[in-house]
């Protein structure tokens, strides 16, 4: 096959990888839209949920979907707990201070997982095989990749409806735009923020459950997807759901194109170059409409 003949395969691989980045980006955007906090623990919280799923699957002997569901319940609880026990406790919090708390949370979660499960990689057996494939028009698609794209698309659509069409979604946006007024309007801001953290942890957890089987489950498994998800969120504008999804797809596709046609050695630099480029050209991101606070 010629190099150009591989283009559809490279593009498909990029979209599959980008779907995971999009999920992470969505999780970050969900928290950012509500609290203006960048959660750098998002990836490792997802890793924890993946380990819980693995423990339920392997040690607990639970059926796949049962383990998956319980792991996502755990993810929600972990997100809510992090907001309640750590973020909310900050005295006179500045956004920067809260972001630093998330960095601390990342280290705690990573340290805990390394202590509890050790550093050795583990295999995550799931029914969606990364090696069983369907071939469409010469493009090879694994069951896991197809499921990843489908799950990401469904999650994005559901989240879009929830945040833009439901009262809870409106409350989240109100909480970000003006906490005091939101509170005066009867919105229980703290509860809304806790809800955002729980929701984001579930979305991140889904990403973790898709990353694990494609490779191995290990404490550092989400470092790379997390950084690329963050890049996707910045690319999309930090507040836009569609932007996050688009950012994820762009990063996935561009890095795969770069890896295949230019250099695999510098492939992982591409997302960061994208961040720099975006911040230099259009700091607000591709699709974001930033709410400007009046003073």
């Amino acid at each position: 096959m010629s190099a150009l003949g591989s283009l559809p395969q490279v593009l498909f691989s990029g979209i599959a990888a980008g779907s995971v980045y999009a999920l992470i980006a969505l999780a970050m955007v969900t928290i950012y839209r509500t609290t203006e906090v960048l959660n750098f623990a998002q990836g490792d919280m997802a890793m924890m949920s993946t380990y819980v799923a693995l423990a339920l699957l392997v040690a607990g002997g639970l059926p796949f979907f049962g383990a998956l569901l319980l792991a996502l319940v755990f993810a929600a609880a972990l997100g809510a707990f992090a907001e309640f026990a750590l973020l909310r406790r900050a005295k006179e919090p500045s956004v920067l201070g809260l972001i630093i708390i998330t960095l601390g949370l990342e280290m705690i979660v990573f340290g805990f997982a390394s202590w509890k499960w050790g550093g050795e990689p583990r295999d995550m057996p799931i029914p969606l095989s990364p090696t069983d494939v369907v071939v469409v028009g010469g493009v090879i698609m694994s069951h896991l990749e197809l499921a990843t794209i489908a799950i990401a698309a469904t999650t994005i659509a559901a989240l879009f409806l929830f945040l833009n069409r439901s009262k809870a979604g409106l409350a989240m946006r109100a909480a970000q735009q003006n906490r005091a007024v939101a509170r005066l309007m009867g919105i229980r801001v703290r509860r809304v923020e806790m809800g955002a953290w729980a929701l984001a942890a579930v979305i991140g957890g889904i990403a973790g459950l898709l990353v694990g089987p494609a490779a191995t489950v290990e404490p550092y498994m989400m470092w790379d997807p997390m950084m690329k998800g963050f890049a996707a969120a910045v690319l999309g504008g930090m507040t836009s759901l569609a932007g996050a999804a688009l950012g994820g797809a762009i990063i996935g596709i561009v890095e795969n194109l770069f890896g295949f046609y230019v250099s695999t050695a510098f492939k992982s630099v591409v997302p960061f170059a994208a961040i720099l480029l975006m911040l230099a050209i259009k700091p607000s991101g591709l699709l974001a409409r930033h709410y400007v606070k009046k003073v």
Partner: protein
Amino acid sequence: MLKKLGNIAALAAGLFALAAPVAAAELTGVTDTEIHIGQWGPQTGPAAPWGSVARGTGMLFQMINDAGGIHGRKIVYHMFDDQYNPAKTVAGVKELVEKAPGVFGFASGVGTSPGLAVKDYLMERGIPWVGPAAGSLHWITPPQKALFSLYPLYADEAKLLVRQLVEKEGKKKIAILHASDEYGENGHRGAVQEMQRLGLKPVAEVPVNQADRDLKSHVLLLKESGADAVLMWVNPTHAVITLKTAAALQFAPQWATSSTLSDAPLMQTISGGLWKNILFASFSELPDADTPQMKQYREAFAKYAQKGERWGVFFMAGIGFVEPMVEGLRRAGRNLTRESFIAAMETIRNYKGILGTVNFGPGQRQGAKEIFLARTDDSGTKITQLTPWAEVK
């Protein structure tokens, strides 16, 4: 005010006078009853499967201490997790060396890049370092007085693997997948040189960045090259991702790997059963080898190993890379100094532990050169030794 300043100055001078003798005295890490030895190793992070090297060394030291130590001294072992991150290796090594009582020397230590980051620091101070757990040319080019290398060179493994693939298995189109660090480059260079000697060129040379989790473009490049065999110098997680991606892309060459991926049971488990029919190089006896030494170590493992530990190649490597250091400490006698230890190490000839035969001498710092090739079967669980222990010429 002046009096206050005077007091502070006097206090500072007093503290300086107290501290000066400690700072001036060399921290040798040896007391009447103890020998302090350090080691770094990734207990977490991408190279964590290699972290059992440091734990294997811990078991060897425990065995020695329980048998009475060495010339009346017990070994105090300081192991730290550097996550295969050279910056952390440097910080940890400096802390051990510069904080009382210091360390006598370093045993093994995983990784070319982490080791390179501290090599000059250790050598400038004459601190002995035995058995870096990485087969790099950097340890012996040029030979360093206090650095005794045991891991056979990745370049030699590469040569043997290429010879096997080309001369015995008739492969003509060989591709190389390698980490874009010193470890990967060492193997890569060795393979290219050997192919040149045989009149061949690699059909693809694909570097992998340590951070990458998505290797589809890498595997597509290998597949596009039409390779009938692929040599790998990557970490275990990257090997698993490569095999899973290759299986999905219906690409099935003969995989051949460095000894760093020679823990076949581990690789078979974490790859979900894809570690079949893999050709690999080995620098130590196979885990179930029937030699008296190996039996003794397996018995010790049953006694000392922590719950959840596994008797595998890397754990064993932590023993094999440090056996000669223990031998050197024994030969140096009760009057142990770094000089006497180095002199004792140079007397080690035809020493056979669980690595190949070890020979050191004045100016000779690559102790073990023998390796062999082995292959996993179609079930991925049974390992067959293909070639005898031999030095690669």
